[in-house]
């Protein structure tokens, strides 16, 4: 396959960026999208140009490092996958592909396609945990039976990989899907109920401080989320937040 790539290049956070055109030949449909970029980078290095910087690590859809806005969609045209799991068989010979970083005020560009998502870490530091000591003095794991349905729901929420596609998909750049997944994981479990009130208040407060936009229920986040995190979580967060505000 031959492709035309239009890639966002930006030296660092302080400089202006622009789209640069590249032609690439010899793309095999079995390559992953990132392997296609590897091939491009090898060409660029051979020519003495600077390779394109992008975030990635596990290359199997679990670490949440890879990102990329591909033809306007976070993680590209396929559903339920991250960019590293996207394969070139989803594109056609001769296609033009726009590749840009995730765009959001709270995700400043570091270089080229890499953005700074540390805002997500700070949201979790504000309360995304259960305050239990880790030195081992806990009760037997089977002492609290947990209804399988709740356990499965908590698990589903906990599978969020923190990639930020939900933010990039949202016209308001809201981080509600991410934050609600984190809140839900804990609030669905008996262990997490004790601190539920402070947790939701603190995490939402931090989310607002980071400069994420408001949620207007467009649902774009759920469509683009590679892990199928459900809007139900946002509804749950809203309920929790409301009852916490009443208590608080």
């Amino acid at each position: 396959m031959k492709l035309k790539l239009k890639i966002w290049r930006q030296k660092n956070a302080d400089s202006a960026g622009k789209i640069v055109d590249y032609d690439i030949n010899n793309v095999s449909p079995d390559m992953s999208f990132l392997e296609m970029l590897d091939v491009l980078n090898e060409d660029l290095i051979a020519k003495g140009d600077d390779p394109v910087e992008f975030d990635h690590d596990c290359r199997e859809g679990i670490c949440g490092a890879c990102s990329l806005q591909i033809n306007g969609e976070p993680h590209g045209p396929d559903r339920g996958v991250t960019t590293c799991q996207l394969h070139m068989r989803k594109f056609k010979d001769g296609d033009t592909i726009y590749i840009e970083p995730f765009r959001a005020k709270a995700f400043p560009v570091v270089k080229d396609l890499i953005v700074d998502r540390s805002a997500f870490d700070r949201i979790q530091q504000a309360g995304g945990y259960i305050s239990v000591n880790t030195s081992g003095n806990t009760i037997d794991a089977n002492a609290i039976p947990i209804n399988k349905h709740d356990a499965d729901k908590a698990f589903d929420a906990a599978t969020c990989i923190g990639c930020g596609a939900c933010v990039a998909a949202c016209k308001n750049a809201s981080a509600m899907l991410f934050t609600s997944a984190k809140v839900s994981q804990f609030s669905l479990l008996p262990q997490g109920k004790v601190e539920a009130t402070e947790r939701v208040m603190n995490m939402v407060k931090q989310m607002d401080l980071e400069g994420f936009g408001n949620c207007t229920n467009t649902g774009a986040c759920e469509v683009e989320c590679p892990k199928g995190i459900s809007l139900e979580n946002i509804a749950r967060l809203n309920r929790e937040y409301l009852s916490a505000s009443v208590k608080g």
Partner: protein
Amino acid sequence: MATLESKIPQGPLADKWTKHKNDIDLVNPANKRNIDVIVVGTGLAGGSAAATLAELGYNVKTFCYQDSPRRAHSIAAQGGINAAKNYQGDGDSVYRLFYDTVKGGDYRAREANVYRLAEVSANIIDQCVAQGVPFAREYGGLLDNRSFGGVLVSRTFYAKGQTGQQLLLGAYSAMNRQINRGKIKAYNRHEMLDLVLVDGKARGIIARDLVTGEIERHSAHAVVIASGGYGNVFFLSTNAMGSNVTAAWKIHKKGAHFANPCFTQIHPTCIPVSGDHQSKLTLMSESLRNDGRIWVPKKLEDAKAVREGKLKPTAIPEEDRDYYLERRYPSFGNLVPRDVASRAAKERCDAGYGVNATGEAVFLDFDAAIMRYGREKAITSGMKNASDAEVRKLGEEIIESKYGNLFQMYEKIVDENPYKTPMMIYPAVHYTMGGIWVDYNLMTTIPGCYAAGEANFSDHGANRLGASALMQGLADGYFVLPYTIGDYLSDDIRTGPISTDLPEFEKAEKNIKEQINSLINNNGTNSVDYYHKKLGKIMWNKCGMARNEQGLKEAMEEIRALREDFYKNVRVPGDENGKNSELEKALRVADFLELGELFAKDALHRNESCGGHFREEYQTEEGEALRDDENFKYVAAWEYKGEPKDAVLHKEDLVYENIELKTRSYK
């Protein structure tokens, strides 16, 4: 540094850990506030260690090369974590887990460490549940278990195919709690490039800020290395792209002995290589072997037709299939340990029975399991006369609930539906049992420098059992290291802060800056990947699933030559100020190019076959590994002497007082 002191406590095996905990010196809480600890790595080992150390009161600094601690490679672990809970009442016990681990490791692990691991394993599960880790549960609300290779009990706890993710998020949340309390300072996108010794003790590190490119000095009273495994020395592996040996190798060069580098695990169930563009390999969790049956065609002509796309696997009748693991190992069948399963796949493919275009793949088939589960489900839901199609549908649903995400992953990569046609799998490099030598306290041969998790060599001998790495990482981090380190730090309560202006820091920083400068200004012609791929080829062909004397000698020579060429002709674009992924890779590959040679040297000196180390010269008539306990019942710990080929061997003899050494048999 002549003898290796393993510092195994005296007394009966089952009492050693308790007694040791009572004997070691403690640091009182007020003094802990004056002590700084650096933890390099935020995977299960580093993340859990940082959280507990901070909770105990130490000031902790963590380092990781990813943009968030939550992205450490532990996140990718799929199948599960072992613990001797005996919730299934199937006869499991601390002793049995200990025994299985020592046997699984082919009698090349230290008894006392393994016993401690088994002893604390149950507590890991309690701890994680208290933190809100959503493990899989049964309908009654209790925790569910599955079984893994090499054992006959069901002791593996899991969270679908994302166990590592859930456990790491648990450790990360414990870290977040301490970050919020100001007890941990997290340096993300920072790579450790050297260890700093002051008066022979580990007192800090040199790290590069990967965003600004700045070289930074960080001091502490002790340094913990939890930087993961070095499987990427093979270029292609199931490890994350950034996984590296740099932190471990740099401490090796500063005096930490490197143990058993050649003990590498080649995992039997990975998605086969598809082409030259391949950048990494994807694991299909071993848990799949609980329900999948492994086979190749019995007839060479069928195998050929499958390879050419002329025959569908589903069209091959039962009697023409060779379920070779069930045939060779009737008692463990598809659940033999990884090293055994991998070699058996290679044997069939080498004999011409491989089933994909490259001839390097075997089938993993779920058809029988789908029908079996489907029938059970039909009966329990009162469908007496369910048709085959209905049974299949029910069965597929059950398989989906167990392995859904793995099946999806497979389909996305290979573009085939594994519910309808058998998966194709082949062995791939996955885990490194070898690593930094540590004593019972997890301290390396450098005072004040510790190693935890996959980075150390300690618990898995020559082969690791499935679901035991997560267990070891968390045991080291939550429950072992935070206590044993107190014994050392109790001498440091009056030391006060370590200054980063010391000449030792200055010198280490200067060295790193020079190395970076010379790489950037090298102006060669070949990319870093060019060298990494070449190294990987040498490793896979000559230090892979089967090794021999001649090949290993050649490998040592070839790697040395490749390393020289690297320094002459590598091209690192860009500059050192700011984000530069090629520079990051170059620094890592430079270290792999040294480690690779030591790896081959270690494999060459070990004239026996054990676990993942298979020397063609040492095998039984049936092709099974031939261990030599008389001459090789020891840990090979290598001391750095300039060139990898000049490394000096130190032997830690392994003493088995509680387990009788036997030939490992899974027949």
